[in-house]
């Protein structure tokens, strides 16, 4: 019988700890697939950040480093500067990348560090049980915005791709999601391109993946995907925000 579909060789057999319906698993697969297709697993080093994906060092078969909260891109900078021929990626959530690690993110981007950043935006702190994230939507109810995010006191969500695409050091910024097969395919291509850019020395590439957190959103997996489509995509439009290769700059 012909094998038509299988797990990438770049994912371990460790059972993932993610909640049912969480999209981390899909994104892990897409990252692993990119490493496999590009043949760079042997020289890849991933940086796990603090948040739900902290234990992704157990899931990818490449060498891995676990960074302090928010510091993944500083750690990636050290790894890349030490061994420029290695393929370095970070895998970070919204709290890590856009709150506690904002300075590390902005400055790695503006330096044009030749790294690949995978950014999971699910509009909430998952690991600590559902607090307001820098990307939580106006009015969104979380554990720490029980009356809904009030922009008068809690400010506005950060649009990371829009912000980073203004920086000269950024080669590629695309926002994708994984809510259906079509979008998973778009995400797969974006992630592969973000790695390809690094291999070709093009500079900083970030793929923001709008993701679900059914557990902390208090929704079923199917309802969570619907909520993402109805609420997150309008605030965080999908698309390519910057691509120096194609001359795209929104």
């Amino acid at each position, binding site marked *: 019988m012909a094998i038509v579909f299988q797990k990438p060789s770049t994912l371990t057999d460790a059972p993932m700890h993610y909640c049912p319906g969480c999209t981390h698993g899909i994104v892990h697969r897409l990252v692993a697939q990119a490493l496999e297709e590009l043949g760079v697993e042997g*020289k890849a*080093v991933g940086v796990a950040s603090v948040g739900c994906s902290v234990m992704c060092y157990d899931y990818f078969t490449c060498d891995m*480093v676990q960074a302090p909260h928010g*510091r993944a891109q500083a750690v*990636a900078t050290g790894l*890349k500067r030490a061994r420029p021929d*290695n393929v370095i990626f970070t895998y970070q959530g919204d709290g890590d990348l856009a709150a506690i690690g904002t300075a590390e993110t902005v*400055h790695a981007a503006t330096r044009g560090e030749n790294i690949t950043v995978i950014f999971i935006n699910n509009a909430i702190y998952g690991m600590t049980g559902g607090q307001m994230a820098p990307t939580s939507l106006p009015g969104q109810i979380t554990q720490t915005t029980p009356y809904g995010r009030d922009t008068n006191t809690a400010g506005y969500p950060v649009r990371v791709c829009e912000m980073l695409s203004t920086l000269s050091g950024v080669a590629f910024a695309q926002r994708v999601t994984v809510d259906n097969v079509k979008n998973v395919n778009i995400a797969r291509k974006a992630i592969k391109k973000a790695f390809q850019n690094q291999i070709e020395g093009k500079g900083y590439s970030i793929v923001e993946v709008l993701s679900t957190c059914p557990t902390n959103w208090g929704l079923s997996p199917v309802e969570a995907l619907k909520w993402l489509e109805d609420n997150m995509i309008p605030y965080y439009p999908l698309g390519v925000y910057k691509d120096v290769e194609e001359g795209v700059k929104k």
Partner: protein
Amino acid sequence: MKVLMKGNEALAEAAIRAGCHHFFGYPITPQTELAAYMSKRMPQVNGTYLQAESEIAAINMVLGASSAGVRAMTSSSSPGVSLKGEGISYMAGSDLPAVIINVQRGGPGLGGIQPSQADYWQATKATGHGDFQILVFAPSTVQEMVDLISHAFDTADKYRMPAMILADGMLGQMMEPVELPEEGSANLPEKEWAAKGHGGKRAHNIINSLYLTPEKLEQLVKERFERYETVKRNEQMAEEYLTEDADVVLVAYGASSRVARSAVNKAREKGLKVGLVRPITLWPFPTDALNRAASHAKNFLVVEMSMGQMVDDVKLAIDCKVPVHFYGRTGGMIPTPADVLAQIEALL
């Protein structure tokens, strides 16, 4: 051939000659010249000088470079070292070697920019959160800064733990003649544990400090503390100066030990039996040298440029066998040999 160098620049050049080609820093007085020197020299050796966006980013770049298996360093001064505490704790928890320079200034808070030794507690007890120690070396001359840098890298690699050079604004800013090691003389160990790409030849390496199972975390911390016991046995360094017959033994490190040495010499000129134990490693603390002196001394006098942060360690090291007194200045003030001599005479 000896050359005349400023302490901060000598530290930088010696680090490069110790095989450190990756430096990540952030500007702060009074260590400024160190980073500036690195920015000039690193391109000449095909190394990396990177001015980070903060001390936090700088120490985490060191964490990344060290994870990749290269020798990496950062330098700062007191307020900046507080920011590095997070990264130092993670490196200790991940068994990563690195060298961190603290050219101390007065504190707390923004404090001042004059020389100080007020970060002793931070360096030896609480660089960051959690159960861990780092190696702490305290040079007292520019030559010793040069010598201790390569020793710090070697020792950090040997035990897989961070090492700190605890200097101060006086040592960083002063110029003295130094003999530098040959370029390319460093002995760089192979690091099988590094995250540098497995090349399909081995299982993946994971650099990590997270252990959610308490039994596992306790076991790893205990193993680390067993390693610390080896460090305590093997790596203590101290200079014993005129201690054999001393009634009063001064204990001082770094800049204040230079003042203490002058006071000892003045006391000897007066026929007073005074000596000096100068800790060179602050962790591990040189308990052996202190106990040798305590076996016959009548009084110890600790001299520091702080409010007496080392005093308790001296008392514990010698089990309070002899009275331990203290004289110090702080906030950037430097004690004079005459001040210290007056304290000695009061004890005799």
